[in-house]
């Protein structure tokens, strides 16, 4: 597996873990808050109710107990279950009413407990109060099944949302990392061809029974491929430096640069005047060298001129396919048969234009050929 894919897998696994953990924490905190609210309500209601009944019992005595029992039974319709009993001074329990569906032992007064049985989830507490010489004890339970079910739904939603977010992030990151590592991937292929030549011809010289012509040919190949290898490395270093943002800005006379460069090729016409721009001399020179080289490679004579603060490099070669122009503008890989070099030239030009906040746009020439325009120079 390629290194970038391993890195990608590690990053996405970590992100997925963080995302799921984050969702779990959010859902847990939210449930804890809801539960706390329920418990608060439980205490508030049970204390108030017991106080109210205690006052009734104090005023009306045993007569009140009957109406208390009836009222308590009505609470059951709202999911509130109660058991009310009075304990006299000798410890004798008298049950006033009881509609609690589940038995629960070992609970002390003021403690909160929860019960989950037969698909019902309840939380409850015990409150007591002294009335006359007796103690009134209230078991108060509230049906919280809806709270639990909503928590289950929340967990499910969190898992689904996390999964969707992870999938979205995975696709996004894959594209980003692939784009970032694209030059690294291409380096391997780009370097292997000259390396295979050098390695192969070196072995050919070492092992073979060679004629003078063989030796000359192999030596020439090694020399040419070394130059090719050096060019590829230089271009890659330039890309590397630009990605780290290492550029210097100085006043550059484009006309001078173009005049110096045009001597490398025949049929290159530089039509003055040109503006003075701010930029990195090495990178700008490299960009123009590549643009002119590409224009020359794709045939015809080359014309360089400036119009309305846009520098154009046009050639009069064969007509270029629309999809090739699109690929050049989107800095996308061209089909192999369309590439007449390392294939990095255009990519480097786009990168250089980008770090200077310029824009490089390729267009079909009016009479065939291709025109590269450099915009936003000011």
């Amino acid at each position: 597996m390629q290194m970038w894919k391993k890195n990608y897998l590690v990053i996405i696994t970590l992100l997925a873990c963080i995302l799921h953990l984050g969702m779990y924490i959010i859902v847990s905190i939210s449930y804890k808050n809801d539960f706390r609210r329920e418990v608060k309500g439980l205490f508030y209601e049970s204390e108030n109710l017991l106080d109210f009944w205690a006052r009734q019992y104090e005023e009306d005595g045993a007569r009140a107990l009957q109406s208390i029992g009836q009222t308590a039974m009505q609470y059951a319709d709202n999911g509130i279950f109660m058991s009310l009993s009075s304990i006299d001074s000798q410890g004798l329990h008298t049950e006033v009413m009881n509609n609690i569906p589940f038995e629960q032992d070992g609970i002390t007064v003021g403690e909160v407990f929860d019960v989950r049985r037969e698909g019902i989830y309840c939380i409850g507490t015990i409150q007591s109060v002294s009335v006359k010489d007796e103690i009134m004890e209230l078991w108060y339970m509230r049906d919280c099944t809806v709270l639990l079910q909503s928590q289950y739904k929340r967990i499910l939603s969190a898992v689904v949302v996390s999964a969707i977010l992870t999938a979205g992030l995975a696709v996004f990151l894959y594209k980003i990392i692939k784009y970032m590592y694209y030059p690294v991937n291409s380096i391997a292929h780009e370097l292997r061809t000259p390396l295979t030549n050098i390695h192969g011809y070196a072995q050919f010289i070492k092992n073979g029974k060679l004629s003078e012509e063989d030796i000359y040919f192999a030596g020439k190949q090694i020399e040419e491929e070394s130059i090719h290898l050096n060019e590829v490395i230089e271009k890659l270093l330039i890309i590397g430096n630009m990605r780290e943002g290492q550029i210097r800005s100085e006043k550059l006379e484009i006309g001078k640069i173009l005049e110096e460069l045009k001597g490398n090729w025949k049929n290159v016409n530089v039509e003055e005047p040109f503006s003075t721009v701010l930029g990195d001399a090495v990178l700008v020179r490299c960009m123009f060298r590549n643009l002119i080289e590409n224009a020359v490679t794709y045939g015809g004579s080359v014309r360089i001129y400036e119009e309305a603060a846009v520098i154009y490099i046009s050639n009069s070669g064969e007509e270029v396919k629309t999809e090739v122009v699109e690929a050049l503008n989107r800095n996308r890989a061209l089909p192999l048969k369309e590439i007449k070099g390392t294939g990095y030239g255009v990519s480097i030009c786009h990168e250089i234009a980008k770090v200077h906040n310029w824009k490089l746009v390729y267009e079909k020439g009016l009479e065939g050929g291709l025109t590269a325009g450099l915009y936003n120079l000011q």
Partner: protein
Amino acid sequence: MAAILIVEDDPGINELLKRTLEKVGYVSFQAFCGLEALQMLQKKTVDLILLDINLPDMSGFDCMKKIDDIPIICVTARDELSDKVRGLYGGAEDYITKPFDIEELLARIQVVLKRFQKEENGYYIGELFIDVKKRKVLKNQELVALTAREFELLLALISNKNMALSRSRLLDIAWGMDYDGEERTVDVHIQRIRKKLGLEESLKTIFKYGYRLEI
């Protein structure tokens, strides 16, 4: 000797393969794209194809689908496992990645040719005839007694003629990969071959490396 078609778009590598194969004695044809290779196959009889995967007009995998009955060795810079598997499932007999070792490439070519029974039955070197099938050597029609190891060494040198083979490679061929003996053992056997077959002139010692049979 077997005829090999080289399908490689890089002119330097294509020429390197051609020159190497011809030094060893193979007949070679050059094609620089898939279409040219397919056209050439209609005109020439080819025993083996060395096929690059990244071709300008079509991928080597697509090209492979259009070729029947001719063994293919993929020679490519694509070293991912998925590509290797695709190549081998696609019909390639072997898969070798760039940058490759010439000795290794020649060895793989020989193995594939042997598997398809397209290896030579015999070789003539001056007054010598080496019968590969019967494993015997005749000098002026008279049998020369060679040990099994001497015969293996001779065969390796003949099938890589004009290309040097390292001592370690010769040791692997004649004694097997597990042999732990000294490389100098090869020297003793080469001396004997030279004497028995009168190859003192053509069986050259390559300084600090190995031996080369020059024909």
